[in-house]
């Protein structure tokens, strides 16, 4: 039986100066080697949960363990275990892909030689070798997404958190990113992924959880969930479980 890459136990989180809590006694396990998709309507708590899992938000109750290490202890060594690809372009647009990777590689704990090797490999995989020395601000949205992803995986993380990694990109880039993520997973990286692209999730994820109003309302393999709820696609399952009303 696989160990938990992410183990969330009785999680409780309330934003400062807010009376209602986002999560209360939330439990969730993501097993090592899974391609885990976290889905839910707008405002359901996906990003907040991901921010708790990556230590960006400090929760008030319960625990979150990454490969057995409590994230709340906020030891910087835990941060070596995971990579994070935020939805926003989280790098320096004034710098080139090589310069960005050099900087974030150093901050991820790699030495000069490791950075050099990994940079060459990632630029090749992401199709950015030809523009390696151009400023990222001159890139298209799709190219920037690839830079964003490359930075997140430069230190070979055991767990990779991805928040809408393919938003706003064309079909080719999406296909390339999904293929690369699958390859990473095959090499042993656990993926924790959120997206609004449900068809993409069907292609990528082998385990999904639906979150609504701060609660996990479904958690299983995609096939099992569709079977249980008599749906043929994730979109139908999504509507079935969360309803059709607008969310803010």
């Amino acid at each position: 039986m696989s160990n938990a890459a992410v183990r969330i136990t009785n999680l409780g989180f309330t934003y400062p100066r807010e009376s209602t809590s986002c999560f209360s006694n939330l439990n969730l396990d993501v097993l090592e080697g899974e391609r885990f998709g976290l889905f839910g309507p707008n405002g359901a708590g996906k990003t907040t949960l991901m921010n708790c899992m990556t230590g960006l938000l400090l929760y008030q109750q319960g625990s979150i363990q990454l490969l057995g290490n409590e994230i709340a202890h906020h030891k910087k060594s835990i941060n070596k275990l995971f990579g994070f690809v935020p939805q926003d372009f989280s790098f320096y647009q004034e710098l080139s892909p090589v310069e960005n990777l050099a900087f974030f590689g150093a901050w991820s704990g790699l030495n000069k030689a490791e950075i050099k090797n990994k940079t060459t490999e990632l630029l090749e995989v992401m199709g950015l070798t030809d523009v390696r020395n151009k400023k990222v601000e001159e890139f298209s949205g799709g190219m920037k997404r690839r830079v964003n992803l490359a930075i997140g995986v430069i230190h070979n993380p055991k767990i990779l958190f991805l928040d809408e990694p393919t938003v706003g990109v064309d079909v080719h880039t999406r296909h390339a990113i999904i293929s690369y993520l699958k390859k990473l997973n095959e090499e042993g990286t656990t993926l924790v992924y959120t997206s609004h692209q449900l068809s993409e999730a069907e292609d990528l994820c082998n385990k999904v959880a639906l979150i609504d109003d701060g609660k996990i309302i479904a958690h299983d393999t995609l096939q099992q969930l569709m079977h249980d709820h008599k749906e043929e696609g994730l979109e139908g399952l999504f509507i079935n479980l969360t309803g059709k009303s607008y969310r803010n």
Partner: protein
Amino acid sequence: MFKLWSTILKDIRILTRDKLGLVFMFVMPIVLAIVITAVQNSTFEMLNTNTVPMLMCNRDTGEAGRQMEAAIVKVGMFKLKQVEVGQTDKQISDRMHAKDAVIAIIIPEDFTQKLKQKAEETAKKALKNFGMQTDSVIVDTSAVQPLTLLYHPVLQESFRHSINGALKSALQVVQNKEILKSLYFALNDKAMPDSFENELMSNQVAINEVPVSRDGSRNIPNASQHNVPAWTVFAMFFIVISLGGSVVREKLNGSFIRLKTLPTNYIVALISKQLSYLFVTFIQALVVFSIGIWLFPIMGLPKLDLPADITGVVVVTLICGWCAVSYAIMIGVFAKTQEQANGIGAVSIVLMAAVGGLLVPSFAMPASFQIVMKMSPLHWCLEAYYGLFLEGGKFKDVLLNIIPLLGITLAIQLITIYGLKRKNLI
């Protein structure tokens, strides 16, 4: 160390690619130093090379009027332009509106007569006090028509006061001469000989101007010595526009978030920013001082003389730079948008410069501002530089300025760390 070096490299790359920021950081202090020094130098020269244009309307036909004219010329501040006696006050005002001159003096028709009367009255009072003449009637001359000084409203108050002082001293010379003549006549029953009059009037005690320097030199500070250090400090603190903005940009574009998830403490980023921008402030000072030394003389401005204690200048520059950089980072940490950082940063620097003595000399500050002034880091930077540049002091002589500056810097650093902790950024 590798992480720090990588971060410094990143910061310097971003800095050097921000062309507008570089222009702001280097061109602005150069322009400020040149413009302010040129303006102050021309004011200084105007006061010393007889170039304040003055309209002179001498309606008096007597000797005192002529003497008054001569005394004004002798003051050495004014370039006299004669106005025809028939011109009215209104016509003189119109000439001033046309910027023919910024001041005009009107000597009334009966100036000699009334001045003589006043001198005689003073002489009689004096003799009466000496018990030498008690029977004469003292005429009240308090209603003597005064000299009229017209001045253009553009004339600054301080400048007007100095002109007023110069004219009063000229008037005093004329008046004293008349009193002496009256006394001489009353005592000797004959007019005072010209030779004796000249001897008395020219026998004035000279004023020996000595700048109080710490190194014993007697060099009188010029406009460059005052302005170059002052505007260098101002420019250093104006780094808030570039650095404060850079911190905010980093927060807004999500880089902060990414950095927080990496196994490196954000303190490394803070140290890197401080070192990178400290280097920039040092280069700023180097550039502005170099311009003061080599370019100013070519431009006809007084040369900046570096103090003897160069090490002291370097250390003071580094400490001032560190304070400026710390302040900029603090603004960046607390500002929510780049506009906020730029607005609050720029306005606060101008305010701190104003209360710190960069715009108005600190000794001229009202008493209520003295405490506020001591809270401005720019004040301590300026005082430290002045201790070296104007007083010829060494680093140990400006330690009392450096200690409060370091205290303020430390406080700024603590506030920044508190801000970062409160925002969950470290």
